[in-house]
Structures are given as C-alpha cells and as structure tokens.
C-alpha cells in the first residue's frame, strides 16, 4: 500500500524509469532555456556484472542524448560503477562511459557520495582527468576537507559542482549545523570564483535564494562572466526559480534522475529540505 504511494510521490523528483523518459524531461527543460544532467539511479552495487550493466546503460543514454540532440550531460555515482567491488573494474567502467561521452562531445560528472567514498572518488576522478578533459567532480560543503581538496584539485583546470551534501556524516569531519554548512558553502563559493581565471568552472548546486544572491554578488565582485559558471538544481525542486535565473541570462542546469532504484535518492531529498517532506505529507493526508 505504502510503496505505490511513495512511488507516486517520488515521481515528483524522478523523471521516470527509462532513459527515454529522462531524455524527454531534459528536452522539455531545454525548451525553457535550461540544460540538463541525467543520472541513472543506482548506488552501492555489489557485483561486477551489475556495475558493468549500469555502465552500459549510461552508454545507451549518451547515444540517446546524442540522437535526440538534447543538451544534457550525464552524472555517475562510483558506487554504482562498482567502486565497492574493485577499484580497477570501477575505473574501467567509468573510462568506458567517459570515452563514449568524449565521442559525442558530451560531459560526465562524478557525483559525490558518503564520506567513506570521498577519497576514492577523488582519486578515481583525478586518474580519469589525466586522460579525458570532459569530466567534472562534485564536492560537498558539509565536509571539512573540501576546502583543502579544492586547493589541491584546482592546480589543474577543474569543472566542479558544489553542493551541500545530503549524507549523514560524523561531526569530526563534517559541519554539524545548516548554518555552518551554508557558511562553508559561502567560503567555497568565494574560493571557486576567485579561481575562475585559473581554469575553474564552477556549477553551484543550490536551491537557496539567498545563496544565489550571494553567488551573483561575488561573481560581480570578482568580474566573473555569466558564461563562466552555472547554477544547478534538482528535478522537481524550485524549478520556477531555475527558470527565472535562465531568463535573467544565467547558465542553468537541472539534475534529472531516472531508473528503478529511486528509493535512497528519494529519502535523501526528504531529509535535506523540509519543504520536500511537507510535500509528501500533504499528499499522504490528501488521499
């Protein structure tokens, strides 16, 4: 009883179960001047076969994006690519995807997961980056280490998506309060925009109107062009705000997930914003 209901509610945040549904959603967003980045849901994969299958799905997805002429990148989670099984096979899977993307002149983002995988994700990213330039990395402002990671990673041209991080982390390594996570986000915004001239391309993943105002102010202060950074939001969350930003001339991108393994993604969305939870509760009681 509850599962179909949740599935229905998750539809707000997930484009559908197939690659076609995601590409379709991306096309609609493109029409409103918003670019897309598509994620095939799945994480914590424990077998090499499943990881390889997920990689194949991404390659199909890239073909689809190409043939429908949609402006959409793809985003992968390394635990879906088999990072928990073996680092070597994970690297091979990712390399296959990135090579396919390179062929289509597309771009692959590395999602960041829980702090147990941060170091391995960064290391894999750096390894891929030495071969292919069309990759970007997501970093989280909730982690204390991120500032230092950026300092190191920014020694080479870097595409980076800055998000807050929706995973539950121990207080020794992560900022505990929303206030502090936001505070660190602002610090990192400053750091990233200061380094645009050194080849950093930041994507600011935030739904916070005040934060967006802060970012635009710092960008002006640092004389960063509108083409040198972008805003990114999640599918189904504050899409009006993203459209407004697109109309104001900012580069915008929406993160579109699809697939059957929507549950953990859905739970993270509920945990990170109380509005999302209200939406769910409202619908449960409306029934």
């Amino acid at each position: 009883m509850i599962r179909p209901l949740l599935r229905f509610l998750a539809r707000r945040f997930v484009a559908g179960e197939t690659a076609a549904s995601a590409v379709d959603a991306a096309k609609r967003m493109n029409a409103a001047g918003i670019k897309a980045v598509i994620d095939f849901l799945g994480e914590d994969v424990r077998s090499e076969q499943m990881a390889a299958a997920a990689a194949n799905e991404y390659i199909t997805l890239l073909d689809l994006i190409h043939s429908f002429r949609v402006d959409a990148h793809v985003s992968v989670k390394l635990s879906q690519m088999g990072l928990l099984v073996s680092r070597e096979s994970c690297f091979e899977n990712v390399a296959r995807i990135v090579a396919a993307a390179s062929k289509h002149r597309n771009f692959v983002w590395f999602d960041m997961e829980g702090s147990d995988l941060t170091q391995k994700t960064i290391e894999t990213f750096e390894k891929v980056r030495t071969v292919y330039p069309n990759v970007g990395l997501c970093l989280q402002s909730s982690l204390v280490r991120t500032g230092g990671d950026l300092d190191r990673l920014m020694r080479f041209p870097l595409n980076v998506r800055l998000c807050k991080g929706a995973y539950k982390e121990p207080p020794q390594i992560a900022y505990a309060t929303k206030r502090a996570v936001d505070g660190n986000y602002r610090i990192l915004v400053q750091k990233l925009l200061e380094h645009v001239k050194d080849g950093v391309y930041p994507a600011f993943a935030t739904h916070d109107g005040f934060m967006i105002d802060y970012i635009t102010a710092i960008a002006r202060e640092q004389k960063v062009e509108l083409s040198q950074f972008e805003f990114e939001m999640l599918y189904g969350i504050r899409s009006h705000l993203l459209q407004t930003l697109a109309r104001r001339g900012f580069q915008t991108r929406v993160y579109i997930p699809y697939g059957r393994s929507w549950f953990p993604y859905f739970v993270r969305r509920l945990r990170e914003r109380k509005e999302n939870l209200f939406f769910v509760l409202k619908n449960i009681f409306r029934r």
Partner: protein
Amino acid sequence: MKFKNEAFTDFAVPENAARLARALQDARRDFGQGYPAVINGRRHHTRKSIRSLNPSLSKEVVGTATDSNLSLADQALESATRAFQRWRGVPVEERAALLRRMAARLRTQKAELTAWIIYEVGKNWAEADADVAEAIDFLEYYAELAVRPPPALTPVAHEHNRYRYLPLGPVVVIPPWNFPLAILAGMSAAALVTGNTVVLKPSSQSPVIGARFFEAARACGVPEGVMNFLPGSGSAIGDYLVKDRRTRMVAFTGSLSVGLRINALAAQPQKGQRWIKRVIAELGGKNAIVVDESADIERAAAEVAASAFGYQGQKCSACSRVFVHKRIYEAFEDRILAQIRALRIGPSAVRENTMGPVISKAAQLGIQRHIALGEKHGRLLHGGRAILDRDGFYLEPTLIGRLPNSSPLWVEEIFGPVLAIAPVGSLEEGIRRANETAYGLTGAVYTRDPKRLQLAAETFFCGNLYLNRKCTGALVGGHPFGGFNLSGTDSKAGGPEYLLQFSQPQAISARRE
C-alpha cells in the same frame, strides 16, 4: 649554543605510559605527608599548616606544608643574607654546574614529578610532563647563559677596561601554582646561578611540588642558607618578605592585583635599606587570536581550542578571545564547537581525560561569575556549567558569542576555560580589538596572506606574537616569554637576557702606564 629543549614524553609508547601509571600509584601512597619549611638547612614546623588538595578529587589531601609565620620569614631572610656573603664568591662555573646537576636529577625523577603535578594542580598527563620538561630546560638554559662572556667594550687608549656582572643579594621568589615546577625552578635557578640567594615561597596551592623541587636541589648540593624554602600564605608573610630591608629583589609570577601590590610595597624604602629593590613580575593576559578568511579553518579551530582550553585555560598565555573574519565565521564556529565537544573532562590522573579540574573551589566560583555575566550579555554557545556530580572542581569548556563590545569579558582575565568569540570585518579590525586591553602578553594570527602576516607583526601589540601557530606552549630558548603593559615587566623568561635582571653590571677601568 648547545642547549636543546627537553623532549616531551610520548605516552603512546607503552613503557612510558606504564612508568607514569606506576608513578601515579606510588605518589598516591605518599599522600598526606607533611612538608616543613627549611631555613639554613634546618626544618621548621608550625602548629598551623597548609593543606594542599587534589583538585580532581577534593577530599584527598595531597600533602600538608608548614604555614610559615613572620618569625620564620625573618629567619629565612636572615639566612639568605648571611649565605649571600659566601655564595657570591662561588665561581659561576660551579653555580652553573649545580644547575646542570639539578637538571639531570629532575630528568631521573621525571615520572615522579609529573605524577605529583597531576595530583596537586590537576594538569593532564601531557601538560604535566611538559611542565617538568620546561623546568629541566630552564636549568640547562640558564646554566649555559650564565657562563657566557660579557659583551666587549669599546677600547679606550691607555686603559684596560673590564665589564662584569655581580649578583644582587637575597631574592624573594614567589612563583605561581599553574606551572608549579617550571616557573618555580626557572626563577629560583636564575637567581642562584647569577650568585644570589633565595627565599622561595611556593604558592599555597602547590607547596608539595615546591618541596619536592627543593629537596632535589638540596640533594644536588645547594648549600644551606643559599636557598630557603618558606611555604606559607601570601597574605600572612608576602607583604613582610617584600617590604623587608634585607630583600634585594622580588621575582614574582602571578596575578595582576598581587603583582601591583608587590611593586608598590617594594618601592617604599625601609629604614636601613641601601638599595632600590628590583621587581620582576609576570602577570596576567587577556590574549586574543585573530583568524582571517584565508586561514586554514580546521587547523585554526583546533589550535584556538588548544590555546583556550589547555590546562582548563589556567595559563597566563591562554587564549580567551577569538576574532574571526565574518566570511568564515559560521564554519569556524562549527569547527571549534566540534573541537570542544571532543574534549574529555575528568580526573587528570586518567590518561584519556584532556581537561581536568580548575585549581580550587574559589576559582571555580569566580569563573562561574564571569560565565554568568557572559550569559547575561551574550549567548552561551557551549558549556557554562560546573560539573557538580564529581568530587572535584570541574567546569565545562565554555564558548560565549554575541557579546557587546562593552562587555567586561573582553577585557578582564578569567583564568579558566572560557572563550569569547566574535566576528570581525577584517584582520585589521581583529587586531585592533585584540589590542583593546590593558594586558599584552600573547596573541596569534592565522592567515595565508604574507602581507597580512607582516601587518600583524607591525600592529599586534603583545610580548609573544605567534603567526599561524597557537598562542600557548612557549619553549625555553626559542620563545622568550613575557608581556607588555599590565602583563608585567616583560622580563622574558627563557630568553637570552633574562639573567641580566638578576645581576648588576660593573665596569672596571684601569689606567695602563
């Protein structure tokens, strides 16, 4: 210089930990012993005695010491005055050798002394160990300084000119309880090696450590009368010792109010007094750390926490104010809270406890009064309470924010685990606020910008300024220690010129035919 700092003990090495654990057991067996005054080699008891409590477990009496009266004080000064006539003539090499022997002896007694410091004043293992290491450093460093040749003079035709340092006379040494061995040993050793005699009045909070140092010194061959051990309360004999005409110099480390009183009393000449008394006084601090937006937040937060809460904030060098650039304020606050939450409070004898008790019930109450004031004017971000369910003088590490600039917490020394935090718009503003006290002991600045480090060096007004480093933990020889303004006479203990204050230079010019 050959001098090297004594290494700290690594308690991760099992033998080292086991050695101290054993020493702690042994020391406990000797709790409650009596420690007499020793004047001219003779032991003196009085009916009244000072009880020294274990602040971690206040029903335990670590030891009792003679509560010296004016008659004993008089005898001690007389003894020091008489012994001076002999001691002044002892060659400096011999006096320096004495200090080296004392250092070697303290080194063999390291675990034992560390244990007594842990019990008597509530330092944790590492802080107590560092206290002993610093004492050894003072002894070896001053031994080496004392035999350095005096500076050369400008040649004058047909003259032979000499320059030498003579001792002063009886020195009254009044050390504090917060470095019950290091400062006591340092001030005493400086006086002795320069040829002065000593009346040592240890703090009434830590007479046992004082007595144990004194015994070690005697065993190394300090002649009778050259150093006299006079435990007692400052209010009973302090004024007398400072005022007496036989006193040539007072070396004091302690609170501002007592320091100013000593300075005033010493300035009044007594009948028959033939000199202007010399006073060196190392007093309090209201030390600040400024963190700018370029700093390594995690490291700065960890080191500010160490500076503020190490030995429960009971160091004159402790950080009690931190000014953080508003751009990183929230993140910094979060990180320092994480540091504070990771502190473990409990009896100092337990190795895992990072924070022990404050020194006494009175200190605990005084600190709580300040916290109450902070809570009224500002906002308590962490801690604030005494921990009453334990039999010691424990206080939570306390962080106070949103204090108005007019709050007394920005200017008054608290001497406890209380840190005030405020955002500032720039490094300059932070340094300006840091300078807004009557003290000027230590300070630190965290920034990655070399230009701002330069600016900090030029404008931050304190005796010991640290750049991208915590503001406590000065090392003998490397960080000569002492403060500006009401922080004292800036005598720079552990510095190359410290001994000059215990001596008077003499120039001898002879005609050459």
